[in-house]
Structures are given as structure tokens and as C-alpha cells.
């Protein structure tokens, strides 16, 4: 069979306007948006009767890809779906989707699960990642057959095919909106399973009554769900209380990760917190424990730290915020890591009311647009690292309304 995409929308699906508009989950709206940047639900699913990707042959992967692509584009997830054959996509497009959190780092790289010592290399990479985003190595060739379906224009739903599992359904929303995200994800799950409205066909998932949805890695088995939120916790970092949050999270069997999820370091004090347990608790129990008991505490803790800084360490807080704003307004060269760190400080100024002429959304979008692939797409040209540092500083000055 041909590997040519049968997609109704040709690549690249991201128009320059869409890239500039930024991603929906960064709109800075929704509940608790001063602390909670985004909410994400991921469901892991595999097709019944087929090997998991750890042992699938290239032909089997190709078959999974074709079956799933056909299904994802026809089952009515959204009025408009974009399909990308990730293995055929230009490196810049893959990176662009990573920066928009539509696909994972592993999906960008395209190594089959379990190939080599993936986890070791991952930790080595993140320690090298002095320049977040620029350190993601792109496979020279396209890698194993894999793809992603993305709902347009909102990009709320993305379904990765042939990541660690055959299907990884993801819903990403702005602010704290886990219940809504779970509702959407579960609906998409039902649509993929079928029966298809047009053909009446169903897709059989690998499932056992004892173990639930069967996944390649048994740490995901059962519900196959990962519930996560991205939190901005700059005040806790300043007051030295982040380690307490990390320890508390670990005691509650939660994972704390960086801006790009698994295997990434925190940049700009953005942290992803997610559940680890997937077996023995239902989706709604997992979600409610997370949303009612854990996250409100972390939010309250960060807000208390912000109030403490405003009341008792105001000069220190002001210095951090306005120093960052000063550098961003006048720098002529900016690395991505420096940009996100400074923008994080400015965001702290915005949410504490110290900075009044900017909104959280402006800052969120700048964080996205200053990342390597977005920067190149916004400016419409490929640039090397040094050129990007110049262009990044210019873009930030322009967006912050500096005319010099």
C-alpha cells in the first residue's frame, strides 16, 4: 500500500496566521489562569490482536498507521481534522508541533519504544538542554512510520499514532478545565472505537477485564489515562518552597516534570504535574483526587507565596520583574532559555499586578513565538542559532512596543 497521505488537508497545515495567533491552550483564560496555564488529558489505546510497537515490524506499524489515519479522519472528531505523516514531515514542522505541545519529544524523534537506551539518553539530553527547544535532536531520516491527527482550528484534540502505544488521544485546554478535557477525550475515544456512522465498522481495542486497556508499558495499563496540568510557580521558586511541592507530589504518587513533559527540565518555572497511577481507580476518581484535592493546594500555596512577596519582599519582587522587563525591552541577543526565564519573571509581574500594560496572554504567546521553530515560521525563513538570537530579541522588542 502507498504511504502517501490521503488527508483532505495538505501539509503544512499551519498557516502563517495560525502560527502567529498562537495555540489555544496559551490564551491565558479559564479557571485559575493566574497559576494554571493549561490542562491536559491523555488516553493510551492499542488495537486488539496486534503487537505493541515495542515488537511490531515496520509493516505492522504501517498497517496500524493506515487503519488509524483512515479512522481518525472519518469518525467525526471535529469538522476539520489535519493529518500529518510525522515521519515525512520537515524537521521544522515536527519541532513546531512539539512547541505547540501537539506531539511529544519521542514522537518528534521517531524511535520505536524500547529501542536502545531511550531513557538514559533522554536524561542526558535534558541536562545538556541549556537552550530548551534547540537541543531536541531530529532524526536524520524520518524514522518509523507515525503520524498525528489534529483538530482545527482550535487544536484542542490531537491523536498521535504509533508513539509508545498505537493511539495516544490528547486534549489540551487553557486554564484549569480537566473535567471538560476528560469529557472531550472520552468522546473522541468513543468515536474512534465506533461504530462508524458511515460504514458501521468498529475498531477493537486491546482490553482485558482484569487489566483494563492494555498498554505497551504496564505503568499505563488500566484506564490508560494521564491527567496533567501545567502550572506557573515562580513565587514558590523565589521563596525556596518548590522542593516541598516536589516532595509532596512524590508522596502522593504524582510526577513533576518540565515544560515539555517527560524528560524535560523546568524552564521559566513552568511545571507539569501529573498522575502516575492508572490501575485500580476509575477515570473520574483519578481526576477528582487530582482536581479537588491536590491542585487547589498547590494553587493556594503559590498564591500565598505571591502575597508574601508583595507584602514583605516587595522591593525584591519588583526588582526581579522590572529587571526582566528592562532586559527584554533592550536586549539585542536572546537565547530561548533566557527569553523564557525573563518572560516567566514578567508573567509574575503581570499576575501580581505590578505590570499593568501587558496581559498574561501576551506573555504566554511570546513564550511560544520565541521558540526556535515558531520564530522561523513567524519570520518565514530558516535561521541558524545566532541569527535566531538576533531575531528573537527583535521580535520581543517589537511585541513589547519598544521603538529603538
Amino acid at each position, binding site marked *: 500500500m502507498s504511504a502517501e497521505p490521503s488527508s483532505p488537508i495538505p501539509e503544512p497545515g499551519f498557516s502563517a496566521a495560525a502560527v502567529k495567533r498562537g495555540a489555544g491552550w496559551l490564551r491565558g483564560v479559564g479557571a485559575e489562569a493566574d497559576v494554571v496555564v493549561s490542562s491536559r488529558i491523555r488516553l493510551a489505546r*492499542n488495537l*486488539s*490482536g*496486534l*503487537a*505493541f510497537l*515495542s*515488537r511490531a515490524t515496520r509493516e505492522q506499524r504501517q498497517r496500524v498507521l493506515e487503519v488509524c489515519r483512515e479512522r481518525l479522519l472519518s469518525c467525526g472528531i471535529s469538522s476539520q481534522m489535519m493529518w500529518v505523516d510525522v515521519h515525512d514531515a520537515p524537521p521544522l514542522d515536527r519541532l513546531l508541533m512539539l512547541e505547540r505541545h501537539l506531539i511529544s519529544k519521542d514522537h518528534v524523534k521517531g524511535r520505536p*519504544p*524500547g529501542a536502545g*537506551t531511550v*531513557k*538514559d539518553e533522554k*536524561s542526558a539530553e535534558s541536562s545538556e538542554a541549556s537552550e530548551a527547544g534547540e537541543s531536541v535532536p531530529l532524526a536524520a531520516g524520518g524514522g518509523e512510520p507515525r503520524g498525528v491527527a489534529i483538530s482545527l482550528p482550535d487544536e484542542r484534540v490531537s491523536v498521535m499514532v504509533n508513539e*509508545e502505544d498505537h493511539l495516544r488521544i490528547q486534549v489540551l485546554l487553557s486554564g484549569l478545565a480537566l473535567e471538560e478535557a476528560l469529557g472531550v477525550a*472520552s468522546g473522541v*475515544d*468513543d468515536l474512534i*472505537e465506533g461504530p462508524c456512522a458511515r460504514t458501521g465498522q*468498529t475498531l*477493537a*481495542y*486491546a*482490553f*482485558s*477485564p*482484569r*487489566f*483494563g*486497556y*492494555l498498554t*505497551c*508499558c*504496564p*505503568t499505563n*495499563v*488500566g*484506564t490508560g489515562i494521564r491527567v496533567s496540568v501545567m502550572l506557573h510557580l515562580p513565587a514558590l521558586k523565589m521563596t525556596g518552597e518548590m*522542593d516541598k511541592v516536589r516532595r509532596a507530589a*512524590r*508522596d502522593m*504518587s504524582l*510526577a*513533576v*516534570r518540565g515544560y515539555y513533559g*517527560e*524528560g524535560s527540565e523546568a524552564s521559566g518555572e513552568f511545571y507539569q504535574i501529573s498522575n*502516575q*497511577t*492508572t*490501575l*485500580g*481507580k*476509575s*477515570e*473520574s*476518581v483519578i481526576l*477528582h483526587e487530582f482536581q479537588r484535592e491536590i491542585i487547589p493546594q498547590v494553587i493556594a500555596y503559590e498564591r500565598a507565596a505571591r502575597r508574601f512577596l508583595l507584602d514583605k519582599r516587595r522591593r525584591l519582587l519588583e526588582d526581579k520583574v522590572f529587571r526582566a522587563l528592562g532586559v527584554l525591552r533592550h536586549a539585542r541577543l536572546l537565547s530561548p532559555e533566557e527569553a523564557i526565564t525573563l518572560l516567566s519573571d514578567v508573567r509574575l509581574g503581570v499576575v501580581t499586578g505590578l505590570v499593568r500594560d501587558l496581559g498574561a496572554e501576551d506573555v504566554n504567546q511570546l513564550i511560544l513565538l520565541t521558540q526556535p521553530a515558531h520564530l522561523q515560521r513567524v519570520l518565514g525563513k530558516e535561521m541558524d542559532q545566532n541569527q535566531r538570537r538576533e531575531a528573537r530579541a527583535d521580535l520581543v522588542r517589537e511585541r513589547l512596543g519598544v521603538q529603538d
Partner: protein
Amino acid sequence: MKCDKCSNEATVHEVVIKGGKQHEKHLCEQCAKGDGLPVQTHAPLTSLLTQYITQQTEAAATAATGVNPSAVPGGCAECGLTFAQFRQNGLLGCPRCYEVFEQQLGPLLARWHEGGTHHVGKSPKSMAGAASGVSQATRARRAESGSATGSEQAADARAAQVALLRKQLGEAVAAEQYEKAAKIRDELVRLESMSPGGAFVSPSTPASKDKPARSPKRKGQEGEA
């Protein structure tokens, strides 16, 4: 976090509880060595996982069957994966592997999932009503060995009751009826401790409780297995 003794980043953390008081130490690797604390070299996650799986499953399976699984040749009939290969990278090969390695996986899953050993929650529409405490593998084995014996019937009844209790437990927790949930949990523990073959593991033992009070840890080892 800075080392208590010098300005290096603290990577070894020790909590000692002595006479009801908690003492914390945060040291860098050199100072920890100087203090005589055991310092693990940075073991990669995969080797930690492998080590852990080896210890856990061999102990459990040896206890259950008297046979060390690593000594048993052959693997999954469907995809050919052996348990030794699973121990290498922590990934299974196909849906069938869950049945083939059911016994070895049981204790591991309980550790990874806060004591969870059985699925609770959504099931595919095609499987509606199929959720029960008895796995298809168990049923198949019973079918192969002829008609169920009296003890197997009792086991089936118990499994059905366990499934029902689990459902009630989930509902009680969702409704925040914690006293009720605790009672159901105790009943579940009692029922499951009666189960043969060691396939069930008590869900009331959180992983943290059986850790020693003194547990030096390195940063950066948390994360997904």
C-alpha cells in the same frame, strides 16, 4: 537546593526519624561520602527498573510457585517476548503478554499503581458488562482443566464479590464517603487474602510504608518508568 556543608547543589537527601523527631540532611555527593552516607552512582532509570523488577517478581513468583521465572524458558506464544526481555526495558510485546505474565506482573502492578491490581473504570463499548474479577486467562485455564471444582466455584463467587466491592469502593470515594470506603476496603483486603495462588496483592499497603526511614535519594531519579 544547596548542600548543608558547602555551596554545591545538594543531591543526597537523608531523613532520619529519631525519638519522634525528624532530622533532614541535604548534602552534595562529596560531603555525603565524607559523612559516610551511601551514595549511589547515577544509575539510569532502565537499570533501576530492571533491578527492581528482578527482585520483585522473582521473590513473588518463587513464593507462589516455588519456581524462579527467570529459569523458565519460553515466552509469550503470540509475540515471543520473554520475561527477561521485559525486564530489560519494561515494555510488553502484545496484549497477550498480560495473560502470559499475569502472575509475575501482579505484584509489580500493585507497586506501580498504589496497590491497584484490577481495572476500575471505562471499558470499550463492545466489552460492556464484561468487567468482572476473573480474567479471561483464568477462565480459559479452568475450561481447559475440565469442570470447575468446588473450590474453584468458591473462588469465582469470591471474585465476583471482589469486583462488586471494588465498584462500591470507587463510588464511595467519588462521593467522599470515606468511612464507608474504609469499611469496603477492609472487606476487600480480607477477601483477597483468601485468594489462592498469590495473584492478589493487598491494596492497603502503600509503597512508602515499607521503605526504610533512612533512604538517601538522588535527585532526578523520579520520573516515569
